[in-house]
Structure formats: C-alpha cells, structure tokens
C-alpha cells in the first residue's frame, strides 16, 4: 500500500510490513488468528511480482521458506500455536543453517486446539526452547497494529543482518484488532538487504558462510546441511566444529541483543522515576497493564511500566538496571506464568509477583489493579 494512514487490522499491518521490507515469498497454511496475514499476503504478493504458495501443512511451509531464502528471496510464514509446533523441526534447521527468514506466530489459547480463535501468550517458551537442540532466537512482541508493521520490518532486518530466523510473537488480539496504521515512505525506515558473498578461506579459497548469505544458482557449489558441519558446509561431527557452530549462534544472538538495545527495540519503560513498583508486560497484555499503571498513578501510587519489545534475547542487563531500586515487580501475561520466571532471574532485591491469566481473555485493567493492591 502507498505511504499514508490506514485503519486496518494487525494482520494486514504485519503483511504490509513484510512487503515494505522486501519480502517476496510467503508459504503458509491457514490457521486462525493468522489468516488475515495469510490472505493479505496472498492478494498482495502477486502485485509485487512475488509468490504466495499455500502448502500442504506448516511443516512444508517452513521448509519452503527456507528453500526460497537460499534461492535468494526474503521469505516468511505466519501461523498460530498448532502450526508453530509443526514448524519447530525445520525452524531448528533454519537456525543451524543460519537461514534468514521471518516467522510470525499469532498466538492463540492452547494447548492443542484449545480456544482456537482466542488470544494467548503461551508460546513464548516454545519460541525460546521449542526446537530440539540449543538455539539462540530473536523474538519480537508487538503490542499494537503499528508495531505489527514496524516489528515485521525490524524482523526482516535482523534476520538479514544476523543471518538467522527471527520470530514475531504476536497474539490473537494484536493481529485481529483494528487501529490506525501509518505506512512510511520507502526509505523512511532502513531496510537491510542480503550481503553477497565476500569471504573465502585464505588458503583453500573455499567459501565461509558467516554473515554473507550466498544463494543457489550462482556457481558457488553450496553445501547446506542440517547436520553438524565445518564452516565450508562439509558434514563433520567432530566436537570442535559443532561446539564452535553452537557458540557462534549464541554469539550472534548476543550481538543482536546489543543492536536491539542501541535501537531501543529491547524494552520500553515509562514512569520509572521514583517508582517503588513496576508492572512488566508484553504484547496485548501490556495494553491493560499500561492502563492499570495510569489508573494507579492517578491515585498517587508510585508505580511504573516496563514493556518487553523483544522477548529473546531476554534483555537481562537492561532490566536489571531498570529494576535496581524497586520493591515489587508485577508480571502480567496471558499464560500460567512463563516470562515471570525470566524476570525472577534478574529481579534483584525486588519481590516478583506474577499476574497470569488463561482462558483466552485479555486481562482487564481493573483485575490488574486489584492484584497489585491486594
């Protein structure tokens, strides 16, 4: 869509963000509440000389975007809980092969089919630990329609910059809700494009695959494998090679964490000066949380607000700094208590209190107020 202000749902915002970032390949399988992303991509991609393919399932969708990425395209898929579970094995493949791509999970209330159309935030640990083996993910958590657009653009940028899958952990609420969306002019938001191949082994002339992302069809004789491999791609199970690979994945995540912090994409804090307590939240749950903070402050309570824009890498250092002099930290999330465990690890001296909610309903700010006053 042309630059301007539109009144659309989060799914459309996400899809438009992807197109803005240069996404030209989408493989997916319909699932509520990700359908609006899927349908919008299906309509819009052909207009941009791109490809929408409806695959036979989410396993295939994930596989196809990996193939498309190695064929040179910016690629993406979008799904919800059950589909996200099916994607895990191939997502792990994408981490190990350092394939840039974006996966959107519009989380719904599970487990299993659960409350199929209703929002949840129960996949945040699946984003962190869902696939087998050690991975070091990057995962954004948008809380508005605008952020569905912005964070999808950032997700593509980080995926290209760090040659890694990046997750947008949305939820049923932010992907279905309608709000004004500002689409910026081309060039207003920076776009990271793929780095072509530069580094070759000084002696053998073999290609090293690091941040540069080569593509098929260029005569590089690429060896891409999900087995443990040497930097050249040759399968090799020796401990030293695989150890180096895994350490490298974690190193990249650390670098990404620094970049996210520099860009202000890790955490957002409001009203923290002289605050004794804070509400921490993310995604849709952060909306009533913020309302609760405003209401409490009106009655003179010294409470601040912290929102996680990225869940992974977990912004530990930044949070530790923000939490330093606090007495109480409330963690509002739409699950039985997942990110609260992470907060506990950096919670310093403060008492950490979870305000979980399941059942497919977003918290009401009055509920949150009751809990922080109780």
């Amino acid at each position, binding site marked *: 869509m042309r630059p301007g202000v539109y009144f659309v749902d989060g799914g459309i915002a996400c899809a438009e963000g992807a197109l803005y970032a240069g996404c030209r390949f989408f493989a997916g399988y319909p699932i509520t509440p990700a359908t609006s992303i899927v349908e919008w991509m299906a309509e819009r991609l052909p207009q941009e000389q791109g490809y929408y393919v409806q695959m036979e399932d989410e396993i295939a969708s994930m596989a196809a975007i990996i193939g498309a990425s190695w*064929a040179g395209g910016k690629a993406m898929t979008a799904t919800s809980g059950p589909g996200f579970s099916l994607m895990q094995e191939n997502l792990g493949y994408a981490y190990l092969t350092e394939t840039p791509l974006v996966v959107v999970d519009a989380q719904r209330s599970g487990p299993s089919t659960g409350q199929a159309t209703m929002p949840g935030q129960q996949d945040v640990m699946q984003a962190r630990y869902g696939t087998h083996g050690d991975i070091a993910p990057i995962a954004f958590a948008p809380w508005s329609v605008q952020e569905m657009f912005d964070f999808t653009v950032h997700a593509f940028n980080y995926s290209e910059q760090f040659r890694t899958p990046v997750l947008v952990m949305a939820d049923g609420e932010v992907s279905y809700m309608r709000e004004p969306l500002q689409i910026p002019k081309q060039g207003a938001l920076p776009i990271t494009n793929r780095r072509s191949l530069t580094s070759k082994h000084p002696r053998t002339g073999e290609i090293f695959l690091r941040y540069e992302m080569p593509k098929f069809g260029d005569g590089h004789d690429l060896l891409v494998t999900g087995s443990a491999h040497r930097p050249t791609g040759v399968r090799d199970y020796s401990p030293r090679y695989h150890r180096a690979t895994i350490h490298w994945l974690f190193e990249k995540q650390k670098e990404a964490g620094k970049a996210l912090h520099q860009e202000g994409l890790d955490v957002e804090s409001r009203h923290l000066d002289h605050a004794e307590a804070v509400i921490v939240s993310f995604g849709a749950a952060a909306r009533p949380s913020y309302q609760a903070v405003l209401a409490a402050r009106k009655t003179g309570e010294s409470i601040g607000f912290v929102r996680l824009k990225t869940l992974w890498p977990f912004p530990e250092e930044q949070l530790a700094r923000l939490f330093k002099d606090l007495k109480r930290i409330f963690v509002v999330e739409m699950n039985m208590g997942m990110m609260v465990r992470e907060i506990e690890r950096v919670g310093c001296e403060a008492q950490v209190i979870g305000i979980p909610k399941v059942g497919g309903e977003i918290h009401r700010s009055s509920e949150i107020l009751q809990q922080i006053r109780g």
Partner: protein
Amino acid sequence: MSQQTNPLGKQQEYYRKRYLRNLPTAFCTGCGNGSILGSFVRAVDALIVEKKLRKRDILCVSGIGCSAWIPSPYFKGDTLHTTHGRAIAFATGAKIMNPKLNVVVFTGDGDGAAIGGNHLIHAARRNIPMTVFLVNNMIYGMTGGQSAPTTPLHVRSTTYQRHPEPPFDLCRLALGAGASYVARWTTFHVDDIIASMKEALLHPGFAFVEIISQCPTYAARFFNEYKDALTPKEQEQFQRSPGAWMLKALKGKRTGKELDHPRYELTLKDRTIELGVFIREERITLTETLQALWK
C-alpha cells in the same frame, strides 16, 4: 581408492573431477547408492555436453537417509541436505523463488514415501517442475534395517519377524497424484536409468523416477529366493558381496515395451513389479500458473 586398477579408471576420473567432491564414500560395499550417483553425474554430463543444462542451475535437495547422502556432500554443485521427509517441500520453495533452477530431489523410500509421502503427492498434483529420484531399497537403511512402507510382506526386518503390511506401489501413487513423468528402474538397468534421468531432468513438470536399489547390509534376505537359485560356484563367488547377487536379482525379465506396457518385469516375493516409463506428458506447471497471477 583403487581407481588405478579399475578398467574404467580414466572415465571415472573424468566424472570425479568435474562433478564430485573428493571425499571418502560413506556407503557400504555393494550399496546401490554409489551407482545411482554415478548414473546421475553421467546424465548431467551428457546434458551439459549437449548444451541442454548448465551445472550452476542444478540444485540437489535431499532429506535424511543413506539415499539423501547421494548428492550431499558428494555432488560438487549446489546441495541442500534437509530434514527427514521434507526435501520436496524445501525444493518447492527454492524452485518457485528461482524458476531457473533445475531442482533435483534425492529421497529414500522411508524419506519420500513414509514421513514425506504427503509432500510427494502434493508436489505431483501441483506439477511443479522438479525431478524426484526415489531410491527404494525396501528398508530403512540409515537407522539399521527397520521396516519401511515398501518392505515386502512377510520378510524379516529389525522391527518385525514377519513384516505384516503390503508394500506401496510408488509409481501408481505418483501417477494417481498427477505426476507428469513417471518411471521405475532398478540399479541393474544403468543405461535405462541414465536415459530416464536425462529425460526427467529436462521434463517440463513434475518427474518421478523410482529406482529400486540394493541395501546389502540390511535387505539382502529379501532376495533369499534368488540366492538359493545361484549355482554353488556363484554362491561361493558372491559370499563376500551380497550386493552383486542382489543386483542380479534386480535384473528382471525383459518384456520389451514401455509406456502402457513395462519394459521389464521383476518378481520379488510373489509380487510382480513393472519397470519402464509409465507416463510422459506436458501439462501446465505451478511455476507458470503462479506467474500468471502477476498480470
């Protein structure tokens, strides 16, 4: 490597240099995978010499299993060695994103017909231009001889004393699903395989070639009836290389025709398997229909 003493040494050296990475083979002695790789590079070379194919356009995609190792890491070209059963789905993304690629999938009977069966039928239905070489050794080789959906009824595997299920006819499956080129050969019929590979690589649509192959390490006993029929001298000769008499068993009986009628018939455990080209048809492809949406 003893290519010096091999009469084919020079010829092998030619293919090795151009198309293979210089790595020790991981396949067991007598395994069919080596000759399938050999057939593939010969087919590719012939097409390159005929100027019908560029090597840089070839992308080999494979799943998990011994057969998945045929191209990766041995083929010196672009290779994508993926997850178990999913090679065709990975290949679909690559082909759509860059239709210039000549995408070739190597898969096993477990990889392509059990865990990956769904991707196979949908790719056939879509008629996405790619070639699938399915190596049917009637067993799970890599994991140690467990039953596959292609294992003959009543043979012994490492999971069943008497395998209780009938095997898949994969060519019928591919035909039914809509593949526009379908052929089946065994590793015995090297010339036919090479000819069929050449056809399949140039076929403008979804091409499926099943290659019945020998896994001497885990599937030799499926061919016991053939072993029993060997002369004592042959028995002795083949003692140390079951791959050799298994190959003999894969020869089958010549019937002479193809299309509609099979070129050979192979009898295995009371089942007749037809070999030949079953369909060769031009139909609209997925890459064409997707690009038509641009207008």
